[in-house]
Each structure stands twice: as structure tokens, then as C-alpha cells.
């Protein structure tokens, strides 16, 4: 158990691992017939690999890595649209650094920047607002990206821009929501999922009630979890206990950060600024109903889709994934990253073909980073 000694409390970790192993044995799960638990959040995927939790837990437990990495599910067409906006001479295009290397059909934002587009990496939408204040003769566009964790920040930035009447600021909105893709995965007859480890910081914003359909309609347990290895182990154990007691409920392991009702200020900002799109495209998963957000008409002055006539507001372009890229199958847990023919060949973190290799929260990047180091160590 070489990894356990790195944990804050190795004794507690060993005791949790023992309890997990006992439950797996009690449930009769084996390597051939494992219990499948999906961690939805990309941050959890990263932590599971970093701490070797997949190796420390028994073979009868299999982690399925979910679609919770926002840059990984960004479709090629949206990347293309970012570049189209960024190439306009009046535009300063601002984005989180994570999105710079996501490939579109005509390259990435990083390549567009090298080709002369004014693209700047910002830490926060507040910095994009500040750029707009300092550059009144330029159009500053912020690439609004992410799940409910970052959605409130963009909403508050738009509200602030409206208060200041900052007419040269707009957001290219690509915010998406966590519950709809979970429903798609549960409706897929080929998916075998026995329970979920739910996202921590998304739930900090939306609370735990939006997951109630999982136990109610599908009879599966979900436990909202923190990011420390002990949080994750405890959450896995809570899922297994529910399975063994034939219960299916939403439980909150991360109550120290996640109020059951979420953050009311954030929820109010989201509701004020955004409306659901009828449908939104996810890389690897296709179109998912009511899974994306658009900026409400009352804030349309700050909507880059309206301002530049680019994006879902005007026309739709569905683009096929590059040949040989199996991101969709990895994303839905059908295959492991190593089974993709391009893994480590046509697709590496330096030259990603698919988006799962781009972000540290993507399953392929996690396999690459920690799988390589692990093989060398063993």
C-alpha cells in the first residue's frame, strides 16, 4: 500500500479500504463481475489517479470516469466559433487557460493566438471585465465555460457589466449543467452503473436535490463527495453500504462545504442571467436536451452570439470527431483510455487529438500522467 502512507491519516485510510474490501466481498463482486461506480467530476477522476485509489481498492470495484470535465465535452464546432470570434480585429478574446489547447477542426485557440488573434488567458471573468474597462475601443469577449461551479461567476460578471453599462463586454456562453448527461447515461441500455460519486463543488452551488431523480427514477445511490482521498474512500463506502442495504438515496458526504439547498445567491444569479437551451452538443455524447445555458434576452447586449451572429443563436454546425478518436466511448465508460487506438500515439497531452487528453481532469490525461509513472515504478 505504497500510496496510503502519503495520506493525511494513513490509519483512517487503511480502515476505510478494509471496510470497502469487506463490502465488495459481501456483495460477491469480482474482477469479472465488478460493482461499477461512476465518479462524475473530472476533479475526482484526477484525485483517484493521483492517490492510486483505483489500485488500492479491490478488483471487484471498478471506477467509471464520467463526463464532468468541461473542456473535455466542448464540441469542435464551439471551438471553431471561438476562433471565428477571436479572429475579428476589434476583439480581445479572453479564456481560462484550460481551453487553449482544445482542438477544433481548424486548430486550437493556442494556434489561433500564434497566428495573430488577440487571445488572452485570464483567471477570472472579473479580469475580462477589467480588460473591457481599460480598452473601451475594443470588444472584450469572455469564453464562458464550465459546469455550475463557474456558471455563477459569469452570471455575476454579466450583471456587473449591465450595472456599469459596459457595452464592449460580452460572453460567449458555453455553460452546461451536470444532471442532464447523467440521465442520458442512465437511459443508455449498454451502460452498467451501480452508483455514483457526485460532484462536490457543483453541488456547493446547486445543492443535492437536483440528483433526486437518480434514486427515484433509476434506483441508484449517489453520494456527493469531497476531493481529499479520505473523502472519496468514505463516499465509495457510503455507496456500497446503500447497495448492500438495498437502499438508493442522495447522501451528502461533503456537508462541510455543500449545503443541501446549495448557495442561494449563486442560484439566484444563474436564474436571473441564464435560460436553458432546448439542446446542446457535447463532445462524445452528442446533443443532450436542456443541458446547456444561454444568456437571457434581457442581457442580450452582453451575449457574444447575438453581438457577432456566431453560434447557436444563428446557425448550427455539427462536426464529426477526428477519425480514430474514441473520446465518446471513453467518456461514456465503454472503454478505458488505453483501449483507444490513438492513445499515446496520435494523441498525447502535447499534441491532443481528443479533448480527454487536454485537461488534467480528463480521463485520458490522468491515465497518461499517472499510468506512465506507475508502470515505471512497478
Amino acid at each position: 500500500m505504497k500510496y496510503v502512507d502519503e495520506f493525511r491519516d494513513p490509519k483512517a485510510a487503511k480502515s476505510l479500504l478494509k471496510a470497502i474490501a469487506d463490502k465488495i466481498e459481501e456483495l460477491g463482486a469480482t474482477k469479472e463481475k465488478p460493482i461499477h461506480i461512476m465518479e462524475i467530476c473530472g476533479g475526482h477522476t484526477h484525485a483517484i489517479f493521483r492517490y492510486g485509489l483505483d489500485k488500492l481498492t479491490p478488483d471487484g470495484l471498478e471506477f467509471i470516469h464520467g463526463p464532468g470535465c468541461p473542456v473535455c465535452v466542448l464540441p469542435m464546432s464551439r471551438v471553431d466559433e471561438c476562433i471565428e470570434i477571436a479572429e475579428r480585429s476589434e476583439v480581445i478574446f479572453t479564456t481560462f487557460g484550460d481551453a487553449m489547447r482544445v482542438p477544433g477542426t481548424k486548430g486550437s485557440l493556442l494556434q489561433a493566438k500564434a497566428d495573430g488573434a488577440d487571445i488572452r488567458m485570464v483567471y477570472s471573468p472579473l479580469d475580462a471585465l477589467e480588460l473591457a474597462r481599460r480598452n473601451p475601443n475594443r470588444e472584450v469577449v469572455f469564453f464562458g465555460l464550465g459546469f455550475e461551479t463557474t456558471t455563477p461567476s459569469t452570471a455575476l460578471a454579466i450583471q456587473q457589466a449591465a450595472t456599469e453599462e459596459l457595452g464592449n463586454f460580452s460572453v460567449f456562453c458555453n455553460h452546461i449543467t451536470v444532471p442532464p448527461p447523467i440521465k442520458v447515461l442512465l437511459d443508455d441500455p449498454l451502460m452498467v452503473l451501480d452508483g455514483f460519486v457526485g460532484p462536490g463543488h457543483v453541488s456547493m452551488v446547486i445543492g443535492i436535490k437536483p440528483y433526486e431523480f437518480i434514486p427515484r427514477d433509476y434506483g441508484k445511490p449517489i453520494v456527493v463527495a469531497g476531493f481529499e482521498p479520505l473523502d472519496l474512500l468514505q463516499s465509495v463506502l457510503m455507496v456500497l453500504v446503500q447497495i448492500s442495504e438495498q437502499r438508493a438515496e442522495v447522501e451528502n458526504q461533503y456537508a462541510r462545504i455543500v449545503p443541501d439547498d446549495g448557495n442561494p445567491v449563486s442560484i439566484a444569479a444563474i436564474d436571473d442571467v441564464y435560460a436553458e437551451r432546448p439542446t446542446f452538443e457535447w463532445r462524445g455524447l452528442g446533443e443532450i436536451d436542456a443541458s446547456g445555458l444561454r444568456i437571457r434576452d434581457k442581457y442580450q447586449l452582453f451575449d457574444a452570439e447575438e453581438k457577432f451572429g456566431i453560434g447557436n443563436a444563428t446557425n448550427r454546425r455539427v462536426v464529426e470527431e477526428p477519425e480514430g478518436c474514441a473520446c465518446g466511448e471513453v467518456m461514456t465508460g465503454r472503454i478505458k483510455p488505453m483501449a483507444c487506438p490513438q492513445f499515446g500515439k496520435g494523441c498525447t497531452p502535447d499534441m491532443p487529438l481528443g479533448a480527454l487528453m487536454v485537461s488534467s481532469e480528463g480521463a485520458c490525461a490522468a491515465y497518461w500522467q499517472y499510468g506512465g509513472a506507475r508502470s515505471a515504478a512497478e
Partner: protein
Amino acid sequence: MCLGIPGKIVEITDPATNMALADVSGVQRKVNVTCVLGEGLDTLIGKYVLIHVGFAMALIDEDEAKKTMDTLNALGEAQEEFEAMFASDRALEGRT
């Protein structure tokens, strides 16, 4: 992006826009505190918060702040957050 980073509120810089200065492991960073206002701006000074992309999203205690920082360091995400903050400072100055 999804993990955030803990910081300690040291000063309210602009009450009109709910902006405060946070100390993030020695790096001073302006953050918006609208989502954790609760009992008012002044009560936030000295409190620890979990910061996501420049917005304080949850109040946490000192022990939680330390545990979170340890996890972020282990994952290499703390460094990524700081690099993103520094890159943003450069972007504001037009040095990209």
C-alpha cells in the same frame, strides 16, 4: 477550475461591488464575495473562503483551508491556479 483554492479575506476593497482582497498562500488577489456575504462585508475579514475563478463560493474553516491546500498541492492544481492568476495579470497589462 473545479477544485478552486482557499484564501483568507484580509480587506474589503470596494463595498459597492463586493470586492475584497484575499491572501492565497501569500499571493494577494482581489476576489468577489457576493456569494458568501451572509451577515455583511465586514464580518468576512479574517475568514477563510474557497475561491473559484475569482469568486469566493463558500466559507470554510482554517483546518479545511489547510487540508484543501494540501490536496491541491498534491494534484499540482495549486501551481496551476497561481500560474493562471499571474497569466491574467499579464493579460491585463497587455503583455500576453
